[in-house]
């Protein structure tokens, strides 16, 4: 694909590349805002994660849920403020691709965990199995 051909059409006009925040560059200061807010939020959430793992203030089994939520929030901060992923129509393809990836990750991880837990539950433990060898 060459730029001459692309310039002949209003090709894919309005679509944004992932990581691109706008069609034409705004001023440095305007773009900086997004990164500063993202950094501040990410630092806050990271500190919260470390605190949540070590504090006694959260009900024990709830710590896992808290950490998962904070992790997802941090990833979201990165996606929005650093990678400029939005829900606008010019970002549709990027979001769809991301959603597909997340779906696959979910299927692989939860599927593997479920299957392996099931198998481990049904199987003889490995060291016991080795002891059964002639």
């Amino acid at each position, binding site marked *: 694909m060459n730029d001459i051909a692309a310039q002949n059409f209003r090709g894919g006009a309005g679509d944004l590349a992932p990581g691109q925040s706008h069609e034409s560059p705004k001023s440095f200061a305007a773009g900086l805002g997004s990164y500063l807010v993202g950094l501040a939020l990410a630092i806050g959430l990271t500190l919260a994660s470390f605190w949540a793992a070590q504090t006694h203030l959260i009900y024990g089994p709830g710590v896992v849920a808290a950490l998962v939520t904070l992790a997802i929030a941090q990833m979201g901060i990165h996606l929005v403020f650093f990678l400029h992923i939005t829900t606008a129509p010019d970002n549709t393809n990027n979001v769809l691709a991301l959603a597909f990836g997340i779906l696959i990750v979910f299927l692989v991880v939860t599927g593997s965990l479920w299957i392996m837990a099931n198998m481990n539950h049904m199987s003889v433990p*490995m060291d016991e199995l080795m002891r059964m060898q002639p």
Partner: protein
Amino acid sequence: MFGNLTWAAIPFDQPIPLYSAAVVGLMVLAVLAWVVIKGHVPYLWREWITSVDHKRIGAMYCMLALLMLLRGFIDALMMRSQQAVAFHAAGYLPPEHYNQIFSAHGTIMIFFVAMPFMIGLINYVMPLQLGVRDVAFPTFNSVGFWLTAAGALLVNISLVVGEFSRAGWLPYPPLSELQYSPGVGIDYYLWALEISGAGTLISGINLVTTILKTRAPGMSYGRMPIFCWTALASNLLIVAAFPILTATLAMLLLDRYLDFHFFTNAAGGNPMMFVNLIWAWGHPEVYILILPAFGAFSEIVSTFSGKPLFGYRSMVVATMAICVLSFMVWLHHFFTMGAGADVNGIFGIMSMVIAVPTGVKVFNWLFTMYRGRVRFSTAMHWAVGFMVTFVIGGMTGVLLAVPPADFVLHNSLFLVAHFHNMVIGGVLFGAFAAYEYWFPKAFGFKLHERLGKAAFWCWFTGFYVAFVPLYAVGLLGMTRRLQHYDQPEWHPWLLVAAGGALLIFCGIALQATQLIVSIRSRRRLADSTGDIWDGRTLEWATPSPPPLFNFAVMPDVRGEEPYWGMKRKAIEAMQLSAEPSYEAIEIPRNSPTGFVTAFFAFILGFGLIWHIWWLVVLALIGAYATFVVFAWRDETESVIPQEEVARIDRANRAARALALTEMTA
């Protein structure tokens, strides 16, 4: 100095590999010598090896696939003949060799025949169907192809230097761990697949981006040819599934090389995790193979029935449904390995559900043919043969999807017959149909029809004669991968199966003959207009073979069905549309990057297999240097002048105008 590599790596004491390696080696040397002496090297280097043109790369993928089909088929002949004679006898293949043969057969057929052929097909046809000049990343495309070729080379070198894996086409631990497979065989397999897997992933990324981001103006998703939809689904699956293969094989490599304990028996390893992960890749893999074949059949059935595809939208929905569902069934490959009834039941049900979209497709093809004016060309023979064969294979698959039934049939020859039914009946028949259909577009002349039909009948009958006995013998209890056996009930079936393999050999021989005869009669079989089958999609708007830039002016498909609408208008008006205004065209420059990268990848793999560490370091430095040299290029494109573009397009327009007057006269 040379790691573990010694003269003992060459199988001087094993006559069969030694002589076959010698024969193949001599043939390769003879071909190379002929090429060099006749002075073809500059042409080959300039036009093929360094080409970044999707048409050349697609053709090379297909050539690699067909070549490796011969190697894989010879393995099959050896397996069938061994099993035909090894009743109360040792046969002629010792077990260590037989094990390598069935491992090589599966590995080569899946990774170096089926995958390259489908990717090559998509590479060639899809940009033409989308009305664009090339794929999104042409040089990357070349890298992907040559990495696949490097992987194929590594697998084939193992015949001469060292040995191949004996653990089957998917090397389950603990057999594939260092303790039980101390030789280099598994390492050849692993590095060959990591390297070619990288190439495949590159291809996947490239083709997804091309389909989603570069299409002719006006080509919305709803106007995309169905082949491009299936190509999209297949490549999305490549992008999603191949990383899992890369990771899993890497874990096995870490176990073997650095004493990790992912899948070992000791120190808490879990061999079942390998089985789980490898099939999480393995099931999407078979859909990666079949979806392009479905797309090709859709195009072929539509063209040769003279009707648009029935139920285009339901085909698209079915294709994308298959894409997603294929990640939800993988446990059916190991029902017997210890998961509970609830897990088995759910995956069994999902396996039956995934048959539904395929059924939708079969009905759509049948309804496309219904009330059409069907022309039974060779490609159509393959299409109808596919419909029958694939449905039968699918039915045995639904049978196997029932966990209790699978407990009886798992790893028997029934299973072997089932998956060959799908892969041969689906993928291979699709490959051959597409080969017949698009060969004239690629080379400017069609293939000899009668030889093609004869080849089809040999393949079709040969397939059933070879594999129906395997269903029978599987039900009689025969396990797969047996080097010898003592059951008298199995013997007659296996003799018949060997006969079937010979029939298939006749089919292959006829296909080779067809190619030679067609080349020699190419003037008589020539395609003058570029639209030899009265096609419906945009690739038939180009001359055969298409020029480097595909389209002189990018087609604008706003407001009409791609190509078919344009053609109807021209026929109604009895003249072609007005000549477009021609401009110079920029095309990406050829580059040796792909070839050189793959060269270093091959050296890297070889060094890692034999533990020649200095070679590994050298190869890594070479690969990085190649990347830097490529990144430092200033001239990335060359220009085809306007006069050249005009000349080529006017020649094609004249041929089409002539055909138009002959049609209406």
